[in-house]
C-alpha cells in the first residue's frame, strides 16, 4: 500500500488529478470523521475536509512522496478546522483552547461504524472536551498519528504531546464518569 501510495503521489506531483482522486477517496472517510469531531458539524466537516484536500493538491509539489500522505494532510486539515473555529468564535487572536465551541454539542455520532450506546456516549464525551484535548484525542485515536507526527503537526515537543494526550485522556475519563453519574 505504501509503495502504491508513493507511486500515486509521484503522479500527483506531475499534475495527475486522477491519481489525486484515488488518494482523496482513500482518506475521505477518515478526514470527514476527524473534521466532524473537531468542528462538531457534519456539513462543516465535509466542507473543511474538501478545502484541506484542495490545499494539499496546491502544495503537493512541496511534499516528499516517500513519506506517508495522511499525517501531512492531517496537519493541513487541523489548520483548516482551527481557522474555522476561530472565525466562528470571532476571537482570531485567542488561544486555541479558549475558543468556545458550542456547536460541538449538537453533533451526533452518525459517522461511527458499529454504533452502540456506550460508543455514542464516548463520542459525546469527546465533543465535550476542550478543543485542545479533543484534537489530540482525534489525532491519536481516530487518525492513527504517532507522537512524532503529532508533535510535527502541532509544532510542539514530543514531551508536550505526551502530557497533553495524558491530560486529554484523564479529562475524557472524568467526562464519561460524570455522564454515568447523571444517568
Amino acid at each position, binding site marked *: 500500500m505504501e509503495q502504491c501510495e508513493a507511486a500515486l503521489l509521484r503522479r500527483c506531483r506531475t499534475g495527475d488529478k486522477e491519481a489525486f482522486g484515488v488518494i482523496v477517496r482513500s482518506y475521505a*472517510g*477518515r478526514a470527514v470523521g*476527524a473534521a466532524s469531531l473537531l468542528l462538531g458539524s457534519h456539513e462543516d466537516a465535509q466542507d473543511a475536509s474538501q478545502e484541506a*484536500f*484542495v490545499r494539499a493538491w496546491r502544495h503537493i509539489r*512541496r511534499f516528499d512522496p516517500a513519506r506517508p500522505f495522511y499525517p501531512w494532510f492531517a496537519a493541513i486539515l487541523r489548520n483548516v478546522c482551527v481557522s474555522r473555529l476561530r472565525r466562528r468564535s470571532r476571537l482570531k487572536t485567542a488561544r486555541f483552547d479558549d475558543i468556545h465551541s458550542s456547536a460541538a454539542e449538537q453533533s451526533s455520532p452518525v459517522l461511527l461504524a458499529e454504533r452502540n450506546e456506550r460508543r455514542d456516549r464516548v463520542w459525546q464525551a469527546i465533543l465535550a472536551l476542550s478543543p485542545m484535548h479533543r484534537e489530540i484525542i482525534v489525532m491519536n485515536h481516530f487518525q492513527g498519528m504517532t507522537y512524532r507526527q503529532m508533535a510535527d503537526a502541532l509544532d510542539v515537543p514530543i514531551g508536550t504531546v*505526551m502530557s497533553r*494526550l495524558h491530560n486529554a*485522556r484523564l479529562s475524557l475519563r472524568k467526562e464519561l464518569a460524570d455522564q454515568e453519574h447523571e444517568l
Partner: protein
Amino acid sequence: MSCDDFRPLITGYLDGELSAEQRARFEEHVRACEQCGQELAELRKLKEELTMMKFEEPSDAELERYWQSVYNRLERGIGWVLFSVGAIIVLCYGGFKLVEEVVRDPGVTVLLKVGVVALVFGTVILFVSLLRERLAVSKVDKYAREVKR
C-alpha cells in the same frame, strides 16, 4: 521520583512511546505503586474502547460525490487565478487609458484632472499595499506553514 513524575508516562507507556530506560523505570514503579497501577488499568481500558471506535467507510456513491466536489473546487481554483490576473490587467490598462485621456483633454478642468490621477494612483497604492501585506502574513502564518513541510 514521585507518582506525579510517573503519571504522565502512563500514556507514553500505553502507546509504546517510552524509551527502554523510561519503560523499565516505569514498570518498576507500577509494580510497587497500587495507585499508578490502577490508573494504568483504567487508562488502558479507555484506550481499548477508543481503539474499537472507527469511522464508517463511505459508500462508493458517497465517495464519488465527495471527489466530484473536490475536483470542482480544483478546477474553480484555476478559474479564479485566471480571472484575477485578467481583471488586474484590464483594470490597469483601463486606468492608464483613463488618465491619458483625461490629462490630454483640454476641455477637462485641472481640478478634475488632478482628481482622476489621484484616484487611479491611490487605487494602485492601496492594491500594492494590500498585496504586500498578504504576502508578508503568508510568510509568518503558522497555519500556512504546515503545508510547506
